[in-house]
Each structure stands twice: as C-alpha cells, then as structure tokens.
C-alpha cells in the first residue's frame, strides 16, 4: 500500500483550469505589445538552389514595410548540430527554406511585400531519398557533410555520446541462435505532431547587444542556451515563457523562429512578432525523423535474442538540430526493450532536400522500434513465439544493464514491469485473441480482425538537470519559482501539489511564477519523460529546503529541535503537540525564505508502456479501423489521476498510433513539395472516430523521489505504431512492413491491386 497523501494521487483542479475553459489564458499570440511589427517569411520554391540575385526595391517601397533581410544583410549566425546552417543563407535546401524576412506594420503588408521581392535562383540538383543521398555522385547539401552524412554525436551528451551499440561476440551470438532472420523495415512516413498552437516568437532587440524574447516553448532556459550558441555569448538573452498550446516534444527548440524575430527587431529597433501559419507549421517546422533499419537477428526458441547486427539510417531532412540526440536515446531504448548480449548496430544520419526532422515525443526510440520490431517479429514467427511473452521476457529487469546516451553503462534499479504487462494482457484479453502469427483473431464476411502488441520505455525519466526555488512568505503563502512553461500536461499544477504535500499547505496558498530565464533557475524542461521524477525532484527538494530553513527559525521559539518540528496549514508545532503551535509569521514578517532544489541526472530508472491494439480490416477496400487500445504501465505513484489519463489517452495522435494508420507527410518525389501541409490532407483522427481506450495503471513504489513516482511522460505514443503493423499483418495473413497501413498498401499486400511501385523496405 502506498502512503495516504493529502493531494498526491488525488484529482485536484489545475491552476490554469478556469483560464483555459474561459479563454483567458494568455498564449503568446494573445499578448499585446506596443509599437509591434509583424514578420513574414519569403520561402524557397526550389528544393535546392543558390540565390543569384535578390531585388527587394519594390517591396521596400511598399508603405508600412520596415525591414527586409536576406543573406546579404544579416550576421553570419549559424545553428544546427554541428552549427553549419545559416539563419538566412544563400544556399536553399528545401522547398520552404527561408529566402527573406520581412517586418511591416501589419501581417498583410508583410505578406504583400514578400510577393514583391524578385529572386533569381540557380537551381541545383536535389535528393529526397536517404539511400540515394549517400550514393556516390548524389547532390551534396553541405561541404561539411561529405556524402550527406551528418557529423555523428551530440555534444551535450559528452565525448562518448552513443552512436552505435557494439558489444559481445557476434559470431558466438549468431552461432547460438536457433533462427536467424535478416530484413529491412522503415518508419519513413515522417509524421508531424502538429500541436494546435503554431510556433512563434516576439523579440525586442536593444542596442548594443541585448535581446528579450517572448517564447512559446517548453523551457525558456533551453531557448536562451540554444540561442546563445548561435548569436554568440556577447549577446545578452532574456527569454519569457508563455503557456504552450501543445508541444508533443516539438517546442523544445524553435531557434529559427526566434532568430527571425530577433534579426528583424535588431534591424528595426521595434518589437517584432512572428507566428507561423498552419501551412508553415507543417511544411517548414519540425517533422519526426525518418527511420530505416536493415538488421540481422539471432533468436532462440525460448525468445532469447542472441545477436543483433545491422545499420540504422536516420533521415534528418535539410539539417539536424537534435537528430544525433534522438539517435543516441533510441539506441539506449532499444537495449531496454531487447535483452541481448551481442550487438553490432551501426548508424548514419543523412540529410536530404526536405523540411527538417527534429525533436518529437518518442525521441528516437519510437523511430528505431517501429523499424526493429517488425524484423524481430519475423524471427518470433519462425519460432512460433507469442510477441507478448517475448516482450515480457526481454524488457529490462532490475539488475540488468544498458549503454545510455552518454556512452556509459548503467545498471537498472527500477520496476519489474512484468506484472503491469500481465494485467494489461488480461484486460485486453490477449490470450483469447492471439491465434498465432498471421492469424486473424476474428473474421466476418470481408472483415478480418487482428491483434498486436508493442512496448516502449525510456531511461530519460531522470535525464538532464532541473533547479527550482521555493519561496515562503511567512504570512503563509508559497511561490514556486521555475522556468517551466505549462506545455499542456498540467505539470505546473502537479509541482504545486508536490509542494503542498511537503509543506502541508492548502493548494490555494501556493503560487507559481511566470516562466523566464531572467530570474527563474535553470531547467531543461519537460522533455523526454522527465517531468515527474527529474523536475518533480527539484521542486520537492526546494520545498524541503525551505521547510528546513523555516524550522531553523521556529525551533528556538518553540524550544524544540528542528527535526522534531512539523507544519500543517501554515502552523508549526513539535510532533505530537499540535496545540502548542505558532504561525509561520512568528518567525518574522520581514523575511524571505528561499529554498533551492536541484536534480542531477540519474539514468538507472525507466518507465514502460505496453500497448495492445485490435484492428478490423476490410479486405475488399483496405480500410483499417482501430477498434480498441489497452495501455498498461506502472507509474510508481500516481500524482494526478486525470492528468495521467490524459497523457495515456494521448497515445493516438501527435504522430503516435495514428502514424501507422493514416498520419504521414507526403512529399512530391520529384519536386520536394510537401503536398499535405493542411489539416484536411494531413490526416488527424477526429473525435467521432475515437476507438475504445482502456488504461491499466499499477503503482509499485520505487526509490525515486519522496513520492516514489516515476511518471509516464512521453511514452504513450510509442508502442502503438509497430503494434498496428503487427495487428494488420495478423488480420490479413500477410506481412506489412511500411507505415502507414493505407488502403493502397493493404490491398497491394492482399494482391487485390497491382502496386505500381515499391517504396520502402522488403522483408
């Protein structure tokens, strides 16, 4: 049994709830600025070109135009990993790349001005396919990346950053195998999470070298840190965060948008706002990385994986900011899912002439597993192994180890998820529905049902650092000072709950600061799945620190030892003597008590999500309908039940399960245009087509922070896509190996249509 708590594990109202439902929350685009200018971007019509000449005279003469920037009149600021991509370059690398920036007194004028700029291009040959891009003679995107292979390694992860998994003895591993399969599979449909609020920024430059930026990102300190590398450390950068209208992992880095506003403000001396349209959001912001894997897998009859060798190709589009990080985390995650002593998995990150891939929830692991699990499935099928039993056997158990992103080996000390998996299987009815590989679970007329299961877990729940201040005012109120923005999950309210629990104070008396990088301490932000454990730990320890300071002041007054004191509802007393109490203010009305908390990385714990799906396939039309989903996890301790449910129910969209059903970014194979940059042609599930979702949540206390929680974080979206591929394959009795399972692919697999071309992999 877990401890009885006052707030933890109970449904409490989010502190932004009234604001959200009454429309008074101030998102970035709601904030009013005096003297504001509006920015628009002129974008490249070509996937690869050099700007030969730009004539902006007509546009400059348009009344209301205040600045037009091109590669010729901006500093040589560069971003990316490594930093080789200019904010405004002469060389354009995708359809939609930035040619010019315009600031004007209205959006309409800025847009009109963009159509008055005459640009002469030298068109360069372009390459869109990763495998073509690495061939000799392929068009080259950067001098710095010969063969279009991006420099490996993510500097923040240290000099040993994971770029491959190499361990054990491959010969021995394959010799021990009872079956060896080899195959290729891709998760190459580069879905787009498309949070409702598009990316944006407002910047005000003040001479000589200070810029204040109002952002709509998860972590203002990460914005400051990223921009400082780009602008140079002599530029003083202040960032102010706002509530984020959804992120799904994409709004951790928005440096281009922020740099556009900064450059235009620097050119005009006025605040400049840029908010992307939905079309720009889809065509020129962040896509999921493309993933293709060729692998050879050795397996024993009991489901032991004896060896994995192969190559994982990650497509990053026209440049990389975080792909190396995603690759490193993905390599760690695949080991958490697959116990195996012998690995030789090599990688490459490849750039091509399309919109860039970047940070998206599922960060690397989803991309790798969506390609890897279908290959593992072939081996399981040959051995007639139940994939659920395989997952349960191979998912990491306490005492086992893995290389994590920094290249170091860690021993897992977390939860054994077998029980959560069993409970999920029971709820789903896996034993009754699983009829063997390529066997439908039910059929009626032209309809075939099929089941699939997937798993995902991540040791990033303790990644990176967090800091927090908790300030006590002795009249009995508390303020959490944090740089975190509310990115939609309700975590800011959850830290208030944690602090309320530590200080035993009514939640109405706990306030939370605006998020900024000016006063609030550093936080890496709610990336990965670190919200509950990493960020929560910082808030809890700041509250404990503040409480300790308070007790040090109160102890002499009460004539008690610090360690004997308690506080409830703003009163302090010695344990067991609540009648002899003093209010906080007895320690002095003229005082600030500032607690400080910090979390340092811990890669020895991981979360886990097992997702079961059942689909129904119409074999005469190819339509795939998701019937029901069961998510099973163990969170250590629930912090907020409705928040957790929301997180679990988020498994479908934002390029999760639905990226296996209909979500995909469609790129013209010859011109490189993204053809579905709108919410009619980009397929997002509507509310009227929601399947049944059932969640199984266990609470096994774990040695993490005070509340013994680990959270669930980002992992709800990740196990689903490969489970769908498995389920549809089982339903129709033939293997599918491409995402999404469109009617075209299903009918082609059933030989009911002559597929005109074969893209992607073949097993």
């Amino acid at each position, binding site marked *: 049994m877990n401890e009885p708590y006052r707030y933890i594990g109970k449904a409490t109202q989010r502190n932004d709830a009234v604001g959200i439902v009454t429309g008074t929350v101030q998102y970035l685009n709601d904030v009013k600025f005096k003297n504001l200018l509006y920015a628009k971007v002129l*974008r490249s019509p070509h996937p690869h070109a050099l700007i030969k000449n730009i004539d902006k005279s007509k546009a400059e003469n348009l009344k209301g135009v205040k600045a037009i920037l091109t590669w010729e009149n901006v500093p040589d600021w560069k971003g990316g990993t490594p930093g080789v991509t200019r904010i405004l370059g002469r060389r354009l690398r995708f359809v939609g790349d930035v040619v010019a920036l315009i600031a004007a007194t209205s959006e309409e004028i800025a847009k009109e001005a963009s159509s008055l700029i005459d640009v002469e291009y030298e068109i360069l040959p372009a390459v869109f396919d990763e495998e073509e891009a690495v061939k000799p003679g392929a068009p080259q995107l950067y001098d710095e990346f010969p063969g279009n292979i991006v420099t490996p390694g993510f500097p923040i992860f240290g000099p040993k950053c994971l770029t491959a998994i190499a361990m054990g003895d491959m010969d021995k591993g394959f010799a021990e195998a009872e079956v060896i399969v080899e195959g290729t599979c891709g998760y190459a449909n580069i879905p787009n999470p498309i949070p409702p609020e598009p990316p944006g920024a407002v910047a005000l430059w003040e001479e000589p070298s200070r810029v204040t930026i109002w952002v709509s990102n998860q972590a203002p300190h990460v914005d400051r840190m990223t921009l400082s590398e780009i602008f140079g450390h002599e530029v003083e950068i202040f960032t102010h965060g706002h509530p984020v209208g959804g992120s799904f992992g994409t709004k951790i880095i928005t440096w281009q948008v922020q740099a556009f506003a900064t450059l235009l403000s620097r050119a005009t001396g006025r605040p400049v706002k840029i908010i992307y349209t939905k079309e*720009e959001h889809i065509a020129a912001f962040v896509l999921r990385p493309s993933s293709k894997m060729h692998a050879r897998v050795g397996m024993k009859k009991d489901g032991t994986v004896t060896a994995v060798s192969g190559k994982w190709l990650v497509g990053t589009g026209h440049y990389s900011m975080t792909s190396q990080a995603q690759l490193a985390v993905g390599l760690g995650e695949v080991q958490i899912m697959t116990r195996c002593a012998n690995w030789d998995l090599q990688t490459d990150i490849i750039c091509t002439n399309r919109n860039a891939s970047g940070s998206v929830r599922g960060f690397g692991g989803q991309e790798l597993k969506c390609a890897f699990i279908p290959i593992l499935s072939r081996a399981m099928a040959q051995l007639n192994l139940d994939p659920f039993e395989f997952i349960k056997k191979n998912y990491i158990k306490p005492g086992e180890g893995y290389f994590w992103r920094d290249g170091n080996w860690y021993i897992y000390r977390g939860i054994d998820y077998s029980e959560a998996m069993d409970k999920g299987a029971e709820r789903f009815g896996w034993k009754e529905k699983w009829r063997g590989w390529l066997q439908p679970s039910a059929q009626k007329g032209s309809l075939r049902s099929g089941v699939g299961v997937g798993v995902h877990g991540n040791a990033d729940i303790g990644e990176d650092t967090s800091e927090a201040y908790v300030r006590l005012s002795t009249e009995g109120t508390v303020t959490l000072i944090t740089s975190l923005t509310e990115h939609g999950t309700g975590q800011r309210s959850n830290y208030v709950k944690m602090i309320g629990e530590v200080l035993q104070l009514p939640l109405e008396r706990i306030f939370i600061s605006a998020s900024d990088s000016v006063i609030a301490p550093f936080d890496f932000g709610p990336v990965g799945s670190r919200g509950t454990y990493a960020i929560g730990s910082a808030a809890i320890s700041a509250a404990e620190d503040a409480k300790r300071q308070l007790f040090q002041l109160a102890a002499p007054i009460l004539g008690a030892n610090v360690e004997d004191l308690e506080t409830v509802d703003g009163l302090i007393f010695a344990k067991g003597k609540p009648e002899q109490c003093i209010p906080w203010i007895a320690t002095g009305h003229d005082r600030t008590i500032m607690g400080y908390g910090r979390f340092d990385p811990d890669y020895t714990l991981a979360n886990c999500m097992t997702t079961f799906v059942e689909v129904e396939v119409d074999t005469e039309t190819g*339509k795939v309908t998701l019937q029901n989903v069961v998510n099973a996890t163990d969170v250590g301790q629930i912090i907020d039940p409705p928040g957790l449910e929301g997180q679990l129910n988020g498994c479908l969209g934002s390029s999760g399960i639905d990226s296996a059903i209909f979500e995909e970014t469609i790129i*013209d194979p010859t011109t490189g*245009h993204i053809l579905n940059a709108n919410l009619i042609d980009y397929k997002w599930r509507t509310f009227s087509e929601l399947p049944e979702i059932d969640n199984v949540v266990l609470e096994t206390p774990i040695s993490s922070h005070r509340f013994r929680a680990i959270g669930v974080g980002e992992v709800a979206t990740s196990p689903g896509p490969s489970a769908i591929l498995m389920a549809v394959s089982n339903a129709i009795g033939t293997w599918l190996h491409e995402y999404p399972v469109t009617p075209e692919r299903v009918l082609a697999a059933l030989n009911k249509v002559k597929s005109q071309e074969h893209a992607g992999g073949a097993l």
Partner: protein
Amino acid sequence: MRSFSHLNARTVSEAIAALVQFDGRARLNAGGTELFGALKDEFLPEYPEAVINIKSIKGLEYIKEEKGHLRIGALTKLSVLSESRLLRERYGALAEAAHAVAGPQIRNVATIGGNLCQDVRCCYYRYPRHIGGPINCARKGNGPCLAVNGDNRNHAIFAGRKCFAVCPSDTAVALALYDAQLVVVGPQGERQIAVRDFYTPIENLLQRTEIVREILIPAVTGTVTQSFSKFALRTPIDFAIVSVASLITLEDGICTDARIVLGAVAHNPHRALEAEEFLRGCRLDVEVSRQAGEFAIREAKPLSKNAFKIQIAKTLVSRAIFGQPAGFVLKGNFSETTSSTQMCSGKH
C-alpha cells in the same frame, strides 16, 4: 488573404450585375467553406477583386415538388438536405450524399450550389502560395500536370486528360444519378446544364458572370432502391476516395433498370454504363453484383499510385447492388421501403 471589395447581393439579378461589373474578377460567397480556404492559400494565378455575398439573397433556400420535378434552391444548406423527410423518402441517395459531406459545422453553412461549384482538391493545384509559391499546372493553364508523375493517389482513374483532378462534390454524384439539371442564370438569361455534363477536365461550365439558381430533379418513380456510399480515410470529414450512387428498379426480383454513378474517380460524376447494361434483366445476387462491380471499372486507367481506387470502386458498386455495408462505408439506409439492403435480402 489579400484585400478585396465585399458586396451583399439581395437578388440574383444584383449578384449577376455585380459579376458583370467586375468583369468576372469576382467570386460568389454562398457558404464560404471552400472559397475562403482558397483565398487564404492564394493558389490561383488571379485574385478576385470582389467577393459577392449571396447569402443575403432571399428565397433561394427551398426543397419543393412541382410539375413532376423536385426543385432545390441553390442556397439550400447541406444539413437541411440531409435531414429533409421528403428527400429521405424519395431521393435518399441525395440525402445521404449531402450528409456525407464534411462534418456538421460545415454542412450547417455549406450550400448545395456551393458544393456543386467547389474547386478541385488536387494537392498540386491547391499548393499554398506562401510556401515557395503556387505550383503551375494544366488546370491553371500554365504548366503540365505534376500528378501524372507525382503523388496521384487521389486522382482520376477514368478519362483523365490534361488535368487528372477529380470532381470532389458528393452531391453531384447523387444528382447525376437522377439526371438532374442545374438552372444557371447570367446576363443573357437562363439556361439548364445537366449535372453530368457540368464538369470538364479543366473547369466547370459556369461562366464567370453566371450563378446557379436552382437544381431541378426529375421525379423518381416506380419501385426503386437507391444508395449512396462513400469511402474516405476519415469517414466523418474527408473528401471521398471513391463514392457510388445507385438507383435500381426491380420487378419480381429482376432488375429492369439500373443507374450507377461513381464519384471521385474522374473529372465528373462517372456513369458506369456497362455495369448498368449488364444489370438489366438480371436477377440480383452476389455473383451478379460482383460482375457488375467488374463491369463498372473495366475502362479504368489508373495512374502510378491510384490503382487501389479501382478495387474500392468495384467493392462499392457490388455492395451498392447487393451486399452488406461491412460497417465502414457510409451507405444510405433511407426508409423502410427503399432500403436496398432490405429489398435485396427479401428477394434472395
């Protein structure tokens, strides 16, 4: 969106006068659900100088029976059509087609005239101006059709020529089934155009100074079963990948007349004449419906990525004639007496 003049027309004549005044460089706004997306994306070579609001015209919202015809005012909302008892009982395929358009919010403002006159959904044609400029194409008269060698999964499988975009209107499919006419008014007066002839490969026949005033449907008589079914990725809101409307006359279980129209497979609602011919005189059963499906797609010539539409079209035709909707296809189930499913199962 760019600036434009905005006029409210109170009568059809005022609307035509305004169209003439702007010499065709004006667009009519009936419901606006398609128009404003087009204006925002600025994908057409010319931008209208004016938007003429015709919602302000009174008396163009009606469904009435008259002299053996059904008359529908061009400004009648799709939601009204889909809920009309008269339509549900006698013109069920049209009620279902209207219901199959988009979601309820759209149907509450979109009109049948607008649904028939809407522009195509081709992803090349509609590519937005502000992401690198619009894409030139055959339909715009300034380039080749990129869909031919590009992503043509949603394009025509019949009679493509120059432009391979398909007619996106669901109601046009049902109206073609009934041999409906559009009553079109312009400065030279009034004319009638069959819905079936209204769409050419690169445009529709409405002149820039004309307005659709009314839809005229000949009475449906005899013992007929009707259906409209639509296959889309997202049933509640998407444009059709393939749709099928059917009208079958049965006497003692024998098909004496059949009309079958396919939607989203060609620039126009595509009449499956061979299938119709085949069905006449047949006793309807599973095998006959399967063969009818084969006849319906015999002339199909798919592009590189849309052959799957043939299989879907075949299935929809078979199911429209005889078979179960299988749970996925939005299919008409109009009333006790005209449901095709019921009649067929009764005879078999």
